[in-house]
């Protein structure tokens, strides 16, 4: 597969690893946060950590839309199913995310709620067309990457006069999350997390470009390298960060130039701009309420906005759901803890029985650690 397999090539990996090994300063630690779950996944899936010197460590960031979705939003979707008897269209990633009271969309589906898994917003529109007598709601989640397809669907529903379709919007904004992340420890009164630099979002940046991250070096003094999701991309971006740190540079660089430009995809951004507006604030799991960090549907499309359309969502903003107290997702999403620091990890919380959202998405730090990395933990424990 062109533009995929070349970026997973073992010989090149050894070469980049050699470059990194040659260039790292053995006298210091490099604590690099990979912002996206896609990076986390590549690191674990391919064993990238094994190719790194001991003083280069990855901190897993909050860049997984499933992991950062607050439980209250799933609770609201369940309410919508139970009280309004809608057909709820979801991306399959949402199916197992824990809601309050040990519920999940999978469980309410098993009890008879009409939850349909879709691959694309086009499928949701199709379901609406095929069920004119039912209300069909698309549960929109995702970062800037996944938002434009939702915008297309909303405009298409309007054009087709599809009266039974609406969208429960949960799209969030990554630059705001970075702000939240960098401000959070201070806000929470915690020790600031030691992050030396960021591997910046890959596919998000294909839409918004690299420019929106420039505030990170400017305001927070941390270098950013936009990195693709293939393992060689991650390694090369790591090398680029190490070089910035070694050279005392602090800027936004772009490793993923084959897709990402500084400006991004104007057509997609314009579409998003027409349909959505920025919310005052929105809750992120682990990061709390972050100002201007999410999108809502513009008043011009109010009829397509499930939050305005259904009584069950009337107090959507007000609903707060308390996460399992022992779950360390919040700290993990902030990079302050590792999955193994959680008492529940493997001890009640596994991918089959996730207690926190980081265990659900295969891009979540806990799930990635569980599925690919456990033997390391045991090896460490054994050797300790």
């Amino acid at each position, binding site marked *: 597969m062109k533009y995929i397999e070349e970026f997973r090539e073992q010989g090149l990996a050894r070469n980049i690893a050699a470059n990194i090994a040659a260039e790292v300063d053995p006298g210091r630690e490099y604590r690099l946060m990979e912002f996206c779950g896609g990076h986390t996944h590549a690191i674990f899936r391919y064993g990238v950590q094994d190719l790194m010197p001991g003083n280069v460590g990855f901190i897993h960031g909050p860049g997984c839309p499933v992991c950062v979705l607050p439980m209250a939003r799933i609770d609201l979707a369940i309410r919508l199913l139970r009280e309004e008897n809608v057909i709820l269209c979801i991306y399959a990633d949402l199916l197992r995310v824990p809601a309050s009271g040990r519920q999940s969309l999978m469980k309410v589906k098993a009890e008879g709620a009409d939850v349909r898994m879709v*691959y694309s917003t086009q499928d949701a529109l199709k379901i609406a067309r095929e069920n004119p007598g039912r209300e069909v709601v698309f549960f929109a989640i995702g970062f800037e990457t996944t938002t434009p397809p939702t915008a297309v669907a909303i405009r298409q529903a309007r054009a087709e006069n599809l009266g039974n379709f609406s969208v429960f919007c949960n799209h969030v904004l990554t630059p705001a999350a970075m702000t939240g992340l960098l401000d959070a420890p201070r806000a929470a009164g915690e020790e600031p997390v030691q992050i030396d630099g960021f591997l910046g979002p890959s596919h998000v940046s294909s839409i918004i470009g690299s420019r929106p991250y420039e505030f990170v070096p400017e305001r927070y003094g941390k270098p950013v390298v936009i990195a693709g999701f293939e393992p060689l991309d991650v390694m090369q971006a790591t090398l680029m960060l190490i070089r910035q740190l070694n050279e005392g540079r602090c800027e936004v660089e772009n490793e993923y130039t084959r897709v990402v430009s500084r400006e991004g995809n104007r057509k997609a951004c314009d579409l998003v701009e027409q349909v959505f507006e920025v919310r005052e604030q929105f809750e992120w799991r682990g990061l709390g309420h972050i100002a201007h960090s999410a999108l809502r549907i513009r008043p011009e499309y109010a009829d397509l906005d499930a939050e305005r359309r259904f009584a069950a969502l009337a107090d959507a903003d007000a609903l707060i759901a308390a996460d399992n107290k022992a779950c360390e997702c919040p700290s993990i999403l902030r990079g302050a803890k590792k999955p193994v620091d959680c008492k529940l990890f493997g001890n009640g919380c596994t*991918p*089959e029985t996730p207690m926190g959202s980081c265990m659900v998405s295969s891009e979540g730090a806990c799930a990635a650690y569980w599925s*690919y990395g456990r*033997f390391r933990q045991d090896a460490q424990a054994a050797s300790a």
Partner: protein
Amino acid sequence: MTSVEKRFPGRLPIRDGKVDMSHGSGGRASAQLIEELFLRHLDNDLLRRGDDSAQFGVPAGRMVMSTDCHVISPLFFPGGDIGALAVHGTLNDVAMSGATPLYLAAGFILEEGFPLADLERIVAGMAAAATAAGVPVVTGDTKVVEKGKGDGVFITTTGIGMVPPGVEIAGDRARPGDAILVSGTIGDHGVAIMSSRENLEFDTTITSDSAALHTLVAQVLGAAPDIHCLRDPTRGGLATTLNELARQSRVGMRIRESGIPVRGAVKSACELLGLDPLYVANEGKLVCICPAPQAAAALAAMRAHPLGGEAAVIGEVVEDPHHFVQMETTFGGQRIVDWLAGEQLPRIC
């Protein structure tokens, strides 16, 4: 004495008729369905008797019995249908003990409204698979459930067979040092099924690998009689099967990603949908675990069989109190290959 009985008032309307509740009532409509559709395709001396059981001679020895329910969607897919699959799925479970399959039983649960024409295609598919395998369906049952209480057709097949003397195959016999082989490319069936699911539709040349493996097993046993484990990596794919065997045998496994045969199109489809071929279902492949010294002979025997041309040694059994299946990635790293959590579903992230 000549019979003047007129069996049925008209012919079963196979071309445009539908299954209705009377076909499951046990009355004359049931009898007609069995005679004009099931028997016509699956015909053999034992089934034709029309008793509630089949009777046949067996030699003294070790018998195996296995049953599988088939509840797939879609019912027809590139490379097969639920009828053929129901034959292969159960024959393979019988064959995985090293046995020679003898007979099959088939139970059909039909949903009211199911087109008789589709049912006939499925029964024809089953008959063709049974004939090709040389294992007849000798007894069966048909029930009809109300519309909305089934999903077209469910088929439960049960098979029996005899294990040749000296063969000792079981899931708990893997030993550290044993070699792990697969008989060919993985993920073909699951990808073929997904490619024909509504909403996912993509184009690919991949067809299901659905096939009966008992002749392959016999050939391998001829070359390497001391096989420890055989299992067909169906639901949950290769990863699940290896984890099952590791748990049953209380061992660990180490496999090499580069050694696992996967078709290009399967790799492509998995990339597109965010799936891992290790967890995708197969219906005509087996995992074989044998003492390392016999691995070469087993591999050669597989490769000499039409269903094993792409067989490969993919790893070895190791000691491991965690019963982990670990894999060396093509990238040179190490990862765990864990049990499947939930279903494999196309993801956005």
